[in-house]
């Protein structure tokens, strides 16, 4: 199992095959209590078709996988933190009645049994694969947390994004310090797969904030998305300088210089209202994005041209490439 763990820590896996999982919802006519069209966790099969994994669920906002066994996924869902084993098919709710409407999940690459999730009123951690949980957001002034990442570079270091900016903890969440974007609601935080000291975060209204000092501080970078909401940021595992952001208004913007400058790349997208973006870890230049209520789009030239890729009518909250040829 150890080699799997080490494999998961590689910045850019070269030989692994990956499966693309998406957290999607068909929300156009849905309110709580109404009939829900197929929604939840979907997996793109080897034949290119989408498969619905596990239960129908209207509210899955994020997923991560166990690096020691990528057939086990963790879903940040409305009903709680869900362990979806057997490649997403078999579900177990790991949390109780005291948390709701989870926003993000991050498995610690330094300790695969340690799982963090962001929720509507804080941040929780489990150090025993979800058997027990501890609230670690209690010292945050405002508790609502949209994003959390365990720093793979430094054990016990965390970066979280919430109502009042980006916060960093170096003691597993016992204390938090503002790291940037003060006063802005943070929507996403990501760590570069190339250099663990490079980070990026998106915000509601404030644009993109980047860190080049191992997430100690974040500064506004470039001029993209200011006054709009950016919902996602992705580093290209195949290109050290390429970063994408997705937003409502800007659509997709790509930086080819590590975030200094941005180019709008929306040709082929029906509207520049994009909620998630991810680069393919194997095919150079391939990138996926989700347009609101219009499913998935793909580009094979780093966002210069887009075409439809299925999941019509859905909004995809998060996408993740999960190693698929290991762990069984």
């Amino acid at each position: 199992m150890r080699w799997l763990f080490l494999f998961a820590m590689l910045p850019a896996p070269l030989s692994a095959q990956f499966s693309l999982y998406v957290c999607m919802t068909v929300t156009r006519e849905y309110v709580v209590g109404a009939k829900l069209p197929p929604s939840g966790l979907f997996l793109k099969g080897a034949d290119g078709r989408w498969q619905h994994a596990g239960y129908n669920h209207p509210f899955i906002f994020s997923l991560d996988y166990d690096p020691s066994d990528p057939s086990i996924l963790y879903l940040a869902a409305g009903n709680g933190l869900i362990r979806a084993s057997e490649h997403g098919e078999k579900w177990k709710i790991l949390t109780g009645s005291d948390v709701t409407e989870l926003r993000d999940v991050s498995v610690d690459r330094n300790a695969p049994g340690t799982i963090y999730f962001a929720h509507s009123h804080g941040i929780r951690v489990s150090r025993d694969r979800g058997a027990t949980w501890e609230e670690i957001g209690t010292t945050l002034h405002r508790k609502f947390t949209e994003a959390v990442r365990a720093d793979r570079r430094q054990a016990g270091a965390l970066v979280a994004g919430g109502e009042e900016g980006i916060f960093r903890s170096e003691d597993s969440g016992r204390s938090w310090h503002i790291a940037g974007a003060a006063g802005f609601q943070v929507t996403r935080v990501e760590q570069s797969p190339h250099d663990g000291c490079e980070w990026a975060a998106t915000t509601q209204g404030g644009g993109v904030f980047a860190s080049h000092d191992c997430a100690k501080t974040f500064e506004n970078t470039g001029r993209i998305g200011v006054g709009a909401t950016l919902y996602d940021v992705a580093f290209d595992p195949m290109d050290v300088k390429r970063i994408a952001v997705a937003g409502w208004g800007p659509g997709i913007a790509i930086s080819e210089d590590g975030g200094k400058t941005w180019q709008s790349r929306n040709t082929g997208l029906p509207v520049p209202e994009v909620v998630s973006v991810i680069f393919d870890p194997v095919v150079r230049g391939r990138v996926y994005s989700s347009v609101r209520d219009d499913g998935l789009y793909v580009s094979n030239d780093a966002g210069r041209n887009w075409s439809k890729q299925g999941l019509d009518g859905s909004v995809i909250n998060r996408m993740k490439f999960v190693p698929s040829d290991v762990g069984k």
Partner: protein
Amino acid sequence: MRFAVLTFVFACVRLHAETPSFEQRKLAMIDAYAHHNGSGDYGYAEIAAKLWRHEDAAWCSQKLEQLLAAGPTGDMFWMFPVTSIAYVDRGQLTESARQALRRSWRTYMPYRGDTENHFLLYYTCLYLMSQMWANQPGDSWYTGNSSEQNLEEARQWIEAWVRLTTTRGQGEYDSPHYMGVYLLPMSYLAAWASDPAMKKRAAMMLDWLIADYAAENLDGLFVGAHSRVYESQLVEPWNGVSSDFGWLWFGAGRPLAMPDNYALYYLLSSAYEPPEVLKQIGMDRSQPYTHRERKRTRNRWRFHDELHGPVYKTTYVRREYAVGSDQGGVLQPIQQHSWDVTWSVPDARGVQNTFFTLHPYSSVQELQTYFVFNPDGATEGVVKSKKTYDSPDKFLGGSPFEQIVQDHDTVIALYDIAPETRFPHVNGFFSRDLSEVVEDKSGWIFMRGGASTYIACRPLQSYSWKPIAGGGRRLFSLYLKNGFVVQVAAASEFPDLASFGKAIAALPLEFRLDPVPSVRFRSLRGTTVEFTYGMTPRLNGVPVDYDHWPLFGGPFVESEVDSQRLILKHGSFQRTLDFKNLTVADAGN
């Protein structure tokens, strides 16, 4: 179907002069579903009603399997009907139907939802089904957890909800619609929980919930401020779930033509009949009274340091009318109703017997406070189900730019509206059923509601009128610094509307609008009300004491904040509920 409904309606009308007994009212409501034989499809509700009646068991089994085979939908609104069916089965369903029901709790994952009523329904049903199917492993439940784990999780949440409600009040308080989905779970647990403590706690909560409505109803209409109400019931107070319960418990008013299924499921479980003290509280309007309540806001995920803020309610009730309010502000998202006057009419069906004003507020800030929504598309998402949320002519919703004070039957509502807000004006609802409306040269508007009530309203700024579809007029005032002084009186206190107007116009009233609206008014009841926007109001020179506002305070219902103790009293009757020790003590007869 038509026959059953007509029979139900006829029974209500025929018997209204001589109000039928609780048992008759109960059976009529159940039979409206059990004996439905028309073209409509009442699905699970019809199955449950027939099983309760021990009728058509074969049809019930067949229909249940058919519905389940089509695939469950509806989240917690699916859970409560099938839980009821499981418990009223009592050996009538076929084994095949029973197994289909059992399987559905493995193959379908209901969403737990995002409101207090969603959670209470969800956990009550999970509790009862885990109790029924005990000792079963995680892979037989959609949760992936065992029966015992499910039961324990549900127990914890239900007990926490009771504790929070009996210390700080409900968050989704006093909803004329959603009251049903609090009564229903408590009725289920009171009837079907095996644990004596859970059973007792739920039975006591039924008293609590009924008392919460009883003191604030007028002829069965749920009056005053509400956390959540639909616009159809807001302007026509009879038109909702509360009318079913007012009729069922007290024989008050008229039920809906087809009773809502919340009342049905309440009846199929405990069918709890309130004790005499609650019936008296619900019906005795011989003396005017002021009733106060403290509630709490819904969970505020963002923009606030505390998860829950306080809600301070005042309701003045007398035979002829009721006046009720909260303190203003956005206490609930989307469906809040902050103040009104409701006048009594002999038959409230189809009558818009209410008056109020508001600032029509719509904002992403409001939605992000109470929901985890992203900002883009949030408003259009809400409008899918709450059609008027983003409409300038709406009559529903709280506003951060509205502040209210009430003393007896006097209300002052002040507005200091930010210029950049979505709808920079105020609306007033002037019902088509106001009998007379006189715009007096003094600046006051005098109105008669029904035969019983005179209403005086003094807009602090000029206004115009806009028609309301279906009748009535909307007062429209586009001044940002604004307000209304409202004084209500019984028609019996004056010879006519003109005399009332003369008396009101003579009352001392001073106001200014800059830098913020400010009013000093000596009310018809002799109270000097001083209210400046942004400051604590003063009554006869004394600041309103929000710090010591009771959970319930009035002649009939008393409870101190954090006490977990409720006292119900009327005449020689008294009931004391102690939720810490789960005891009920009755006195009087």
